[in-house]
């Protein structure tokens, strides 16, 4: 018996090299292209980086103190938060409402699902180019429809007031299908018997929705909220295409500021300090997700 144990132990031990061999490629790729740049982002945020001259000059906290006085960046942070709040509340909420409608076995269910999902699988850039045309103040479909209805036309993406809102409307259109699908899956996991019991007890549809559906689906709601928040913090493609942050920084966001500072102004150190702020925000959301999801055991 002891011999067998010893043999098994040895056999297990002998497979260590396989374990390391199998995880080595992933570790090398991630170490080199993900972890190392992540660490360097932190380091560079304390430097002035000149990439062509390969000169790195220590500037201490100067980048961060500049950030605090950078109106464009502060605008970007507040826009990103506004964007996140709208996406999370409207897109997630609408997704839940639409999913609740689906749950009854309906005839055209799969057709609707397929249609709602088309924007989500389409490239954000291509879809945003199409929306840029719809939003065109002169020839765009939206203003033509407003004119047909005798309503006042809007400036959409070319107006200071509407630009961020127009991007938000586009993004709700883009993400609604995903949120709906996730909620449909969550709703299907609620046992039918709960509803049957509630019906016997005389609970109406609204009572059932608020007393059974909402409590049982809260882990899914939580996931959708976190997912949409992180996606919102990372928003870039549609802003780049639709407004490029304009007019006059009205619709600028954090990632666009990072892009502009690094790749238009070549201020790599300064852009790194912005990237570090973005990382910090994502980390807070992730820690929140981790600690709360343990509580709910999802």
């Amino acid at each position, binding site marked *: 018996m002891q011999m067998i144990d010893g043999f098994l132990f040895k056999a297990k031990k002998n*497979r*260590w090299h396989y*374990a390391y061999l*199998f*995880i080595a*490629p*992933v570790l090398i*790729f*991630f170490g*080199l*292209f*993900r*972890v190392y*740049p*992540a660490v*360097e*982002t932190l380091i560079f945020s304390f430097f002035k980086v000149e990439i062509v001259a390969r000169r790195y000059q220590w500037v201490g906290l100067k980048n961060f103190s500049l950030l605090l006085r950078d109106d464009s960046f502060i605008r970007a942070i507040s826009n990103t938060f506004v964007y996140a709040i709208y996406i999370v509340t409207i897109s997630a909420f609408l997704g839940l409402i*639409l999913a609740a*409608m*689906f749950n009854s076995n*309906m005839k*055209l269910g*799969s057709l*609707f*699902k397929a*249609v709602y*999902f*088309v*924007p*989500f*699988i*389409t*490239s954000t*850039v*291509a*879809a945003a*180019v*199409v929306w*840029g*045309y719809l939003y*065109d103040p002169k*020839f765009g479909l939206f203003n*033509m429809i407003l004119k047909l209805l005798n309503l006042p036309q809007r400036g959409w993406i070319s107006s200071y007031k509407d630009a961020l809102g127009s991007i938000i409307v586009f993004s709700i*259109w883009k993400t609604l299908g*995903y949120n709906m*699908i*996730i909620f449909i*899956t969550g709703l299907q996991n609620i046992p039918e018997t709960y509803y049957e019991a509630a019906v016997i007890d005389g609970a109406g549809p609204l009572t059932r929705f608020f007393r059974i559906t909402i409590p049982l689906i809260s882990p899914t709601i939580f996931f959708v909220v976190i997912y949409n928040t992180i996606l919102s913090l*990372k928003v*870039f493609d549609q802003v*780049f*295409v639709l407004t490029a942050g304009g007019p006059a920084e009205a619709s600028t966001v954090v*990632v666009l500021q990072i*892009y502009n500072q690094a*790749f238009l102004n070549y201020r*790599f150190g300064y852009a790194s300090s912005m*990237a570090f702020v*973005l*990382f910090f925000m*994502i980390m807070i959301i992730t820690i929140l997700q981790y600690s709360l999801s343990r509580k709910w055991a999802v």
Partner: protein
Amino acid sequence: MGGIGIMKSTLFQQGIKITGNTFVYFLLTLFGILMILPFYWMIVTSFQIPENLITFPPKWWPQPPTAEHYRNAIKKAPFLLYYRNSLFIAAISVSSSIFFGLFAGYAFAVYHFPLQGFFFILILSTLMVPIQVTSVSLYILMARFGWIDTFAGILAPNFASAFAVFFMRQTIISMPVDLIDAARIDGAGEIRIVINIISPLVKSVIATMALILFIDSWNDFLWPVIIINSKYLRTIPVGIAFFKDPYHINFGPLMAATSIATMPMIIIYLFLQRFVIKGIATTGLKF
């Protein structure tokens, strides 16, 4: 009496159900139209003669249809090349992520080795540092490698996927250990076990992962637009983003270009939609 009462109430309830259902269908149809209206308008515009694009009220159907915008779009940008670049990058990044993810997932699921937990958390924690955060320093690293404006540079952050490792591990860990032991007793080596025994068993997970990674790679924009300078390396999203001439916007060719860029994928999606939706719903994944 009682019978009539029951009948009345069921009729009443049916009435609510029918009006309720009509309302549900109405709302779902309304939102459904809003979902596809942009695509409809894109296609209509791409076939509309130029004069019709500036008339009011708008023309909802191309009358007469023309292929002129498509000819102009193809003249202006090499879409075939964009497709080839996007396909090449997606093929390499998807197959490499799946292949290395399969082996790493197997190692984390089956073996017990020192620092196992640490490495697993390390791989998962890269999800917290997305490309939006690392793009600046990754660009500097690529400059040191001489990989700026190369396929290697575009692919660098996409050779492996933390999601692939995670889902492979979750799938393999739920499989019976006896199976692997039996294969070992039969004298199969570890690499052969992964390739010949495990991979056929997890092929549906592999297919789902491949599909999601493919869509992800196909639509990727931020990193390609940073690392690509040359026109001939452009992927479809980068090509489309720079198709627009900022000083002379011509919506006809622009909509023809976006149709060329999006319609093949949408048609493929319509054939695979059940599989796509199920895959994304069960893994909760994207992008």
